[in-house]
């Protein structure tokens, strides 16, 4: 029977890749992330600057936290976009009828959101370097943290995006459900960036560990629970 399981696992990843490439191709065509979400995220950075009185030292100290708040807000939009792709013309129903395992759809959509978050984080990193004068002390830690946090946000966001879909008040429900769950990610990623950007003396690698654990748990849990979310 081991053979059958191998086939199933291969099918899982083939289908996930199919869904991921489709979502990314749609993004490449429609440019919603690049034209709308990314400018929004940068705008948030600028607004923080206004609100904190343009004091470069303050901004540099708080850059990690402001960075991750901006990422979370932009991630909400990315997740909503990812969900609305399926609901715009009820492709959602087609997916359920396709016979693809819900786990594949989950992984595929999460990968697509992950890639978009990485792009977003790259732009925002440039943003805090230019606008807040942050300096990168530890590029390896920075990159790994950005990747681990993106996994955590993409998987949790994809699961909760499906959860809030098909309900009356889905747009307003998503933030209050998703953001508290992501509280550890915000804290962990901020602390890790504190280290990587030299904003505070903390051990960023320990925090990276926490982010990795969160990401793994969210991936496994999401893959298992996504079916329960999209079924009627």
């Amino acid at each position, binding site marked *: 029977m081991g053979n059958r399981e191998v086939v199933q696992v291969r099918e899982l990843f083939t289908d996930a890749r199919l869904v991921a490439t489709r979502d990314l191709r749609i993004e490449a065509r*429609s440019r919603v992330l690049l034209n709308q979400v990314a400018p929004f995220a940068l705008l948030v950075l600028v607004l923080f600057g206004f609100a904190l009185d343009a004091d470069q030292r303050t901004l540099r100290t708080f850059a990690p936290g402001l960075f991750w708040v901006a990422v979370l807000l932009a991630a909400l939009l990315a997740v909503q976009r990812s969900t609305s792709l399926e609901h715009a013309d*009820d*492709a959602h129903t*087609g997916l*359920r009828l*396709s*016979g*693809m395992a819900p786990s594949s759809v989950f992984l595929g959509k999460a990968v697509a959101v992950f890639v978009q978050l990485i792009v977003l984080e790259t732009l925002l990193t440039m943003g805090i370097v230019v606008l807040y004068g942050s300096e990168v002390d530890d590029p390896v830690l920075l990159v790994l943290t950005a990747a681990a946090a993106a996994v955590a946000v993409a998987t949790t966001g994809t699961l909760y995006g499906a959860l809030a879909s098909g309900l009356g008040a889905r747009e307003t429900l998503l933030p209050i459900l998703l953001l508290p769950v992501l509280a550890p990610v915000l804290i962990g990623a901020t602390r890790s960036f504190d280290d990587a950007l030299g904003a505070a003396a903390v051990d960023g690698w320990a925090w990276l560990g926490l982010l990795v654990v969160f990401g793994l748990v969210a991936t496994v849990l999401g893959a298992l629970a996504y079916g329960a979310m999209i079924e009627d």
Partner: protein
Amino acid sequence: MAHRYRGGVSVVELRGAVALLGRFPALAGVNLSVDAGETVLIQGPNGAGKTTLLRLCAGLLRPAGGEVVVLGHDLTAERRAVRRRVALLGHSTGLYGDLTVAENISFWARAAGLSAPDAESRAAAAARLMGLDQRLLSRTVNALSAGQRRRTSIAALAVRRPELWLLDEPHAGLDQAGRDAVDSLISEAVAAGATVLVSSHELERVRSLSPRVVTVAAGMVVADSSRSGPATDGDGEPGGGPGA
């Protein structure tokens, strides 16, 4: 296991089936049995439950009462097993607006588990059947008219070669050529041994396929051309209740 019925193999077997939309019983106790290879026209006034009946058969809704067996699977217990073997054409097109027609069709073919080469060849055949020419194939769905979208949507379903077709007003929004294409699709499907349930207001057009006609009203089957007597099996009264 297949359910035997009147000598044929029963593809759809509903007994007292109840289905909810939210908390509203859109189907309030449907009795219906369809054999393999049959073409069934489902007619009825707006709000009778035609769409819900088709969605229930596709395994999209959990039966809230009664017994629902499709292609040998009891849908109360397992609905996913049925889905790959049926095709449901609903009111929405189920397409991605930013993808081209060709990309949409081949995505749904791949999603149905076909290998890439298979998907391409079947997609080409389905596009030909629905009259989608080369120029249209490379256009994004956003740039199509409603009728062209409908054709694309049907083509994306045809690639799956389902055993059971569930067509919800397939002629709506199509021009003459499109309607003819739908009719030939139905004939081909039946010739290939598939079963077709079609709801339509285009009664005369569907009649030319000489289907069995089932009339639905208020969430129940109230008349059935294949029965000489009362509409429902067993108790005979449409108000007989959801045998839950």
